[in-house]
């Protein structure tokens, strides 16, 4: 009881911080249904005469369904590739092999190279493979991310060594150990990989801008840029578009937030 009494100021402070952090989201949502300009004075906290028609405008102003489909296909490809490739890479980093420290150092140093610096080689490689302006080409540079490899590595490190040895004694190959033993024990790492790779792929603007040539292959962030470029008086519709782009990512995060937080904190409290 005493403990509860002492903790309420902390909860109150946390609640206020939460509200402050949610204000921009609320403002975007409010503007998307009211169309009220952000510079209008005095600002209204409650939307006046809310309606959903800005969403309808966005749906018909650009080929939204096509862009949405493109984003979904690219994101699904990215998620599948990230889970498979990062799990294999993460598992290999839990094993002992000559040059492991060098590989780890290489991975860590590569994290410091921004994607913009690798765009030209990525473009040339994708072009040589004949994958420009295709779903596979749009997803290819995001097929594996170093942060997600380390998420898997941290999760696999927490699995007792004896379990892997027992699986080897039972005759399982390394591949089957990953999929039959390690992956079921690393659900939080899988969730983290799914969410991170989805959000990075979903929000990616630069690479689709470079890798796509036809309008039919554009993704939602490109659609947003196109929408802004040719629509006038777009306050309400622009914010509605933002909500429509953000909604899948927020939904995915809300669905898997427990596993996501677990995945990020795996290994943090080890020992």
């Amino acid at each position, binding site marked *: 009881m005493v403990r509860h009494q002492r903790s309420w100021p902390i909860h109150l402070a946390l609640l206020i911080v939460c509200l402050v952090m949610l204000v921009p989201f609320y403002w975007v949502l409010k503007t998307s249904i009211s169309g009220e300009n952000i510079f209008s004075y005095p600002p209204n906290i409650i939307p006046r005469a809310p*309606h*959903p*028609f800005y969403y*309808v405008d966005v749906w*018909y102003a650009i080929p939204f369904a096509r862009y949405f489909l493109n984003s979904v296909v690219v994101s699904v490809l990215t998620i599948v590739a990230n889970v498979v490739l990062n799990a294999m890479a993460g598992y290999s980093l839990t094993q002992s092999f000559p040059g492991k420290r060098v590989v780890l150092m290489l991975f860590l140093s590569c994290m410091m190279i921004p994607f913009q610096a690798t765009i030209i080689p990525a473009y040339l490689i994708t072009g040589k493979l004949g994958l420009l302006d295709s779903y596979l080409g749009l997803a290819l540079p995001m097929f594996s991310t170093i942060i997600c490899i380390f998420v898997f590595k941290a999760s696999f490190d927490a699995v007792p060594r004896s379990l892997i040895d027992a699986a080897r004694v039972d005759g399982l190959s390394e591949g089957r150990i990953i999929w039959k033993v390690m992956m079921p024990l690393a659900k939080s790492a899988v969730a983290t990989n799914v969410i991170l790779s989805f959000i990075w792929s979903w929000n990616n603007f630069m690479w689709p801008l470079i890798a796509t040539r036809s309008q039919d292959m554009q993704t939602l962030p490109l659609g947003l840029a196109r929408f802004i470029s040719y629509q*006038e008086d777009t306050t309400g519709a622009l914010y509605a578009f933002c909500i429509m782009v953000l909604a899948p990512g927020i*939904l995915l995060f809300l669905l*898997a937030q427990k596993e996501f937080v677990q995945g990020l904190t795996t290994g943090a409290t080890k020992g």
Partner: protein
Amino acid sequence: MSFEGDPARSVRKRWFVSRFVLVPCALVLIAVLWNAWVFTHNHGVVAGRVVDAAGAPVEGAEVKLWVFNFTTFVEQASTKTRSDGSFEFAKNPSHNIQLSAEKLGVGRSRIPVRLYFQSEDIVLKRPLQLSSADADNK
């Protein structure tokens, strides 16, 4: 074989009723129902009535359908009201329209109409009310 005795089946059942399956299925269901509603209500019918300032039906008023065309509203079709003041357009292609009605000596009126999808069938709940004041303003 009892259900409790089959762990694999139990896991499968738990997976099917988890939020990772139920939420996407609910979204797909909503999308299917919405599309079914759209496909059965998108004939482009726009109907309504025209009345004068006193609320009496106006016969022979010219009603125009204006469709939003990228930056402005352009005239799409026109018709005359019947004896009970009613009118109907058959092939509205848009979701963002305006309706104007005018009769010499009675007045004019123009209202925006927003629809939930293109070519949505709609019957206006409130009639277009002609007023001379509106005519003066325009």
